[in-house]
């Protein structure tokens, strides 16, 4: 028989205001096994914990029930306290009388009754608890970073600098990500390439970093400290070791009509291509859907002109399987599609562009060589209109409910750069709010207004109407003046909302990392664990977790690296002892449990069993407790009821059911 102590927490008035805690403690003493019950204002405090420890020692307790907040909050606290007092931490159970009782009920009598029942259920469970010992699992000292943008590069560099091996998997032919597409960066207006390319070179040269470009994560198995990942290295059709990056193949390639992904389809690229001049690795890729050789079999010019003999038409996708201790997701973002915003005439006029497209136009390496010009007729614009919050802050189903965070600042940047380079161009910005929290951010925006004469109008644009003469008629409103504005513009720039990369859902599913309704990866705790996924061993870096600018992305990337390093620095991890355990006497070796186990934790062994004096050789299930995560799928599948889950055993749950229905 257990000797159980019940400790009822007031949680200040959080519990005590609606639950009669004294009564709960009184009732507890009537439960079987309970030898001690008390209440205290803050059980989780130092004083509260020592009360529990004192009672354990004085009354020789073997089990503890704490009636308090959610076990997700303080289960570990109380288990550790109990362990320090000398009893097994898994002899402690929590009755959640705050989140599940006092906070949702108003009537004292009703809430107290429910609290008593919840306490009874916990006591009934503890009566059947057994001491459990956590196992150990090893940590593979290697990290995987998914995504090779600035977030991924920074995380990889930081981990590599700490002395651990890192692999970067990047989907496109080059690392660099969105930042490589930008022209200048706010609030200092330094050129994006100038600060990014040195980092790209550094990460490429680092002895601890291995980069898989044009590759994707295909399969993830395992768990924290011991992930096994299949990486599909897509066929580049170019031998990376032989290619010298001379670029002749790209010059000679006759297939030139594919829209350039890097330049946001504003111009075209060849079928064999590197996305941009500073690409790393500087090895081209053959786009097999555009390549004439792959489509018709005739061509092969690149092979003929390649002096290094690097072209390999018969290259095939390669699957690389590697083990990792930690995985960092840095999949970044894209702009939303503007199909649903027909009022802004994005699909009707070439002169209505997104901000990222403007970024390419302003860039010296972009489709217009850095000259600001209308894409329809190549003329220099005189009137430019910027529209903010296109698809951001929408509660309808056309856009995103969140603020994309970076648009206010990059629009101020664009406006300033244009006014600086082309002082004869008038720039008007329609805004709802200008949001500039950040170091030197508001000063930056004010400079655009005060020093560069950018015309900021508080109000939205209702419609952009392309005119027969090629101009764009913008109908907006000035809410301060309370006037409707009709303005002829030469170019309209839309600050389209950003959204997580579309592949992130697939990746999150592989990693069993949770994701929110906007496809942003969820952090383990919004405030206190912002760079960790709730799934152990998965870390979040950059915009995959929420909208961020470059400085924030870099700091989060560093934070994610630190968390990953903290994991990799450990030699062993304690594993959850609540694992499945077969009763060998009942097991008939039918293999049903192994079929449902998502972790491959169940194997079979043939061994001699002493079945009530009869010695027999049988095939029985055996659980690898380092692999078992304790989901319990096998326990229900087992037709003979041989499999049980420690810590959540059949008898324990039935006891809880009985206590609740009593």
């Amino acid at each position, binding site marked *: 028989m257990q000797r159980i102590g019940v400790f009822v927490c007031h949680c200040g008035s959080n519990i005590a205001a609606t639950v009669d805690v004294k009564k709960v403690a009184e009732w507890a003493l009537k439960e079987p096994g309970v030898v001690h019950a008390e209440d205290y204002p803050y059980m989780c405090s130092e004083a509260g914990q020592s009360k529990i420890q004192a009672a354990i020692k004085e009354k020789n307790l073997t089990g503890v029930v704490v009636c308090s907040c*959610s076990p997700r909050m303080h289960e570990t606290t109380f288990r550790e306290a109990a362990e320090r007092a000398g009893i097994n931490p898994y002899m402690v159970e929590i009755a959640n009388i705050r989140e599940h009782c006092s906070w949702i009920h*108003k*009537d004292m009598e009703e809430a107290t009754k429910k609290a008593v029942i919840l306490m009874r259920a916990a006591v009934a469970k503890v009566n059947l608890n057994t001491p459990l010992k956590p196992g150990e699992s090893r940590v593979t000292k290697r990290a995987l970073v998914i995504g090779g943008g600035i977030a991924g590069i920074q995380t990889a560099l930081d981990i590599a600098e700490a002395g651990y091996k890192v692999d970067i998997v990047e989907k496109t032919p080059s690392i660099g990500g969105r930042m490589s597409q930008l022209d200048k960066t706010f609030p200092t207006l330094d050129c994006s390439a100038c600060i990014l390319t040195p980092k790209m070179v550094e990460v490429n040269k680092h002895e601890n970093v291995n980069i898989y470009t044009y590759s994707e994560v295909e399969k993830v198995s395992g768990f924290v400290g011991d992930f096994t990942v299949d990486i599909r290295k897509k066929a580049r059709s170019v031998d990376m070791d032989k290619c010298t990056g001379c670029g002749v193949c790209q010059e000679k390639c006759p297939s030139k009509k594919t829209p350039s992904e890097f330049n946001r389809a504003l111009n075209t690229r060849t079928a064999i291509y590197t996305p941009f001049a500073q690409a790393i690795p500087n090895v081209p890729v053959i786009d097999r859907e555009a390549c004439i050789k792959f489509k018709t079999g005739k061509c092969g010019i690149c092979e003929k002109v390649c002096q290094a003999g690097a072209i390999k038409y018969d290259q095939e996708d390669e699957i690389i399987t590697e083990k990792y201790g930690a995985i960092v997701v840095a999949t970044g973002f894209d702009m939303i599609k503007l199909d649903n915003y027909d009022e802004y005439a994005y699909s009707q006029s070439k002169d209505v562009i997104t901000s990222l497209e403007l970024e390419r136009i302003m860039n010296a390496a972009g489709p217009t060589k850095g000259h600001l010009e209308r894409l329809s007729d190549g003329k220099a614009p005189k009137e430019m209109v910027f529209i903010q919050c296109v698809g951001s802050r929408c509660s309808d189903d056309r856009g995103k409910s969140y603020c994309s965070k970076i648009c206010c600042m990059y629009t101020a940047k664009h406006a300033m750069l244009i006014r600086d380079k082309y002082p004869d161009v008038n720039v008007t910005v329609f805004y709802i709010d200008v949001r500039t929290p950040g170091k030197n951010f508001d000063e930056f925006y004010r400079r655009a207004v005060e020093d560069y004469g950018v015309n900021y109008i508080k109000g939205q644009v209702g419609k952009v109407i392309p005119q027969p003469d090629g101009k764009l008629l913008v109908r907006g409103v000035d809410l301060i003046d309370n006037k409707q504005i009709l303005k002829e513009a030469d170019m309209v720039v839309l600050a389209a909302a950003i959204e997580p990369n579309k592949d992130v859902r697939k990746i999150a599913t592989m990693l069993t990392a949770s994701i929110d309704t906007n496809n942003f990866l969820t952090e383990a705790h919004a405030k206190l664990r912002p760079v960790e996924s709730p799934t152990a061993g998965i870390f979040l870096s950059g915009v995959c977790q929420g909208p961020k600018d470059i400085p924030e992305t870099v700091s989060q990337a560093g934070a994610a690296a630190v968390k990953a390093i903290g994991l990799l620095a450990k030699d062993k991890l304690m594993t959850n002892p609540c694992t499945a355990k077969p009763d060998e006497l009942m097991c008939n070796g039918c293999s049903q449990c192994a079929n449902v186990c998502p972790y491959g934790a169940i194997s079979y062994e043939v061994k001699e069993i002493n079945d009530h004096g009869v010695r027999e050789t049988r095939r029985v299930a055996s659980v690898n407790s380092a692999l078992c995560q304790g989901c319990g799928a096998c326990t229900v599948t087992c037709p003979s009821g041989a499999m049980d889950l420690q810590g959540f055993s059949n008898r324990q749950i039935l006891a809880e059911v009985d206590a609740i229905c009593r």
Partner: protein
Amino acid sequence: MSIEANEEFKPKIVAFCCNWCSYAGADLAGSSRLGYPADVKIIRVPCSCRVNPMFILRAFEKGADGVILCGCHPGDCHYSTGNFYARRRMTMLFSMLDYIGVENGRTRVEWVSAAEGVKFSTTMNEFVEKIHSLGKNVRLGDLRCRN
């Protein structure tokens, strides 16, 4: 009508919630102060696939008027596939229960994520209302093993 018609009917409802999504959703309902009737008592299980049909039968035997199982949304299971097993098992169990006279309304599976405190609370409110409309569970009464 039942002899206890004068007494207010207080249903006994057992909710099995998976640790990762629904239990956290219930916590969120609590911290957002989204009320639901006190008749609902939650049992924490690691995953919806841990819920053995035996637990549900036992609950009805012991006098429960409704049993609800909550898990992560399909595809979001912490253990990747657990809720699919739960869904299949419960589909089978509920149809068998219906066959022996425990109406389908007394049993329910609902996917509640850790972010869906509102959904948890509205689900529980709806479920309790449904149980109220069905009244006391008498079907397994003669099988009930009373202490």
